[in-house]
């Protein structure tokens, strides 16, 4: 076996990461919450919880319910707003030696533009993930995610106001993910990420009421992993820009699957709750895999699906 240490570093949309394993938006707060139990410096990148230009209260509780091999959440994008984030959280993140990607959202194209403008040139921010697919807000969020034209307009608007790498996050609900991915590429995206959660619902049969205050939420976790692999594969074949894959990663083999399907980097989401040490374990597991398969680096793995 053995051989030289495989190359784990990657560069996605100009963002240099020491390995391809990021943590997914909304599952890792603003980093500080996990710093107690994890060395943040080990991560490829941190994607923070979705930020709007102004603060947002999110949905009423309950906001989360467990399901078979997954969970359904309807947090509703609660966040302190761009200023609050920059003031209260970014100083800490700047000291961690890890790229920070800010997940941003708006209820209108204008709001996307404002939040993208605000982050342009802010020290310590390496890129913007444009959440055009969150199922938890009613003001158009879902329309941006399922209609390639609308998505294109949001991305183009953000493109004009920031030099930061732009990474639109696609919805699994888009009827044709390849078209959506191409629309993103054509509108100036530097990379795309997918998948966001799948719209879902849980009913408490004893009370005959929805388990979530918001009635509907988004399904995540290992349950959706096979859906994520399919969508990443379809999207990666459709575009030249890099794809960041996520959805149900619980161990290294799940991440490797997404990379073979075409993802240049991956993000761990729900599994951060199951075990906060998931991301470092996935990193170690990918390295072991590369060694075992005598591969020089992660690049060789990306899109390596044979038939």
């Amino acid at each position, binding site marked *: 076996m053995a051989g030289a240490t495989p190359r784990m570093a990657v560069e996605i949309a100009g963002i240099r990461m020491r390995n391809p394993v990021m943590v997914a938006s909304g599952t890792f*707060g603003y980093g500080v*919450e996990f710093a*107690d139990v994890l060395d943040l410096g080990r991560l490829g990148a941190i994607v923070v*919880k979705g930020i709007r230009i102004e603060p947002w209260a999110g949905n009423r509780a*309950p906001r989360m319910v467990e399901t078979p*091999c997954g969970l359904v959440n309807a947090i509703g994008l*609660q966040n302190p707003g761009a200023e609050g984030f920059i003031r209260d959280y970014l100083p*800490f993140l700047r000291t961690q030696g890890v790229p920070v990607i800010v997940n941003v959202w708006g209820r209108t194209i204008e709001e996307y533009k404002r939040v993208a403008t605000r982050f342009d040139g802010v020290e310590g921010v390496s890129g913007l993930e444009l959440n055009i697919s969150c199922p938890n807000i009613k003001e158009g969020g879902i329309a941006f995610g399922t209609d390639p034209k609308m998505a294109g307009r949001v991305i183009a608007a953000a493109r004009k106001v920031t030099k930061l790498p732009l990474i639109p996050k696609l919805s699994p609900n888009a009827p044709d993910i390849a078209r959506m991915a191409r629309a993103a590429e054509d509108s100036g995206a530097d990379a795309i990420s997918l998948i966001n959660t799948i719209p879902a619902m849980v009913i408490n049969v004893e009370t005959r009421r929805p388990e979530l205050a918001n009635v509907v939420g988004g399904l995540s976790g290992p349950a959706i992993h096979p859906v994520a692999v399919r969508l990443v594969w379809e999207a990666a074949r459709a575009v030249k820009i890099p794809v960041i894959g996520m959805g149900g990663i619980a161990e290294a083999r799940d991440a490797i699957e997404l990379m073979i399907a075409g993802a240049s980097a991956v993000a761990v989401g729900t599994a951060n709750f*199951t075990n*906060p040490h998931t991301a470092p374990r996935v990193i170690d597991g990918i390295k072991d895999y590369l060694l075992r398969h005598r591969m020089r680096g992660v690049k060789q793995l990306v899109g390596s699906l044979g038939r």
Partner: protein
Amino acid sequence: MQPRKQTPRLVRARVREHKALRGDYRFLALEFQAIGSLAQPGQFVHLRAPQLAARVLRRPFSIYSAKGNRLGILYKTVGQGTRALAEVAVGERVDVMGPLGRGFPTDRTGIVPVLVAGGYGVAPLSFLAGRLRVRGVVFVGGASARDVVLCVEDFRKLGWEVRTATEDGSRGIKGLITAPLDAWARKNRSQPLEFFACGPDGLLEAVGRLAAKGRWKAWLSLDKHMGCGLGACLACVQKVRDASGKETWARVCRDGPVFEAAEIVW
């Protein structure tokens, strides 16, 4: 927004003791380095129930005892997770993260502490009873005798007076614990009472109301379904009023689970 000073740990802790108590309650003791000096009453640990492959979330449990390297939890089997936990054998390892959250204040003096427990709410209060500087009264309520006898002897040994009530009347007064509690508080109206409660929301709300009437403080430990347990996912939120009177969401896992009653917006 810095990490808290008292750092929680994530370990695979060995099971040292595990036994059935009365009713559906069980006691689990884990090896956990220096937990005795780390843990505050009211804090909790976030456990991954073993052999629960279809479940992605951990389960929170109050710290019931913490001495040296021995962490104890007292739990009730209610669903899949707790039933899976009940299968764990001595010598096996359990994935545990903690101590987490902000517990009860233990340095209060010049007060008459009144502890109010519902069901498994006795767990953190039993720990608290040994750590408070003063002794007082404990009110323990539950559905039946099986729910209230837990810890009663522990409280007494520590020098606390114990009063019980059960809904079926099988032990103590018949009915909700809030009835004898209200009566007792009325009689002790002029005392510097201070409440420490853990139990279902209804109980906590009632204790809060009682405290407000007498202008007493009440420390309530909330029970919310949790995701991360670390303050990141915003699943466990409770509406509170901040210092300036504005309503916001607090995270029960990190800003709590213990809140002063006046903060809470029910």
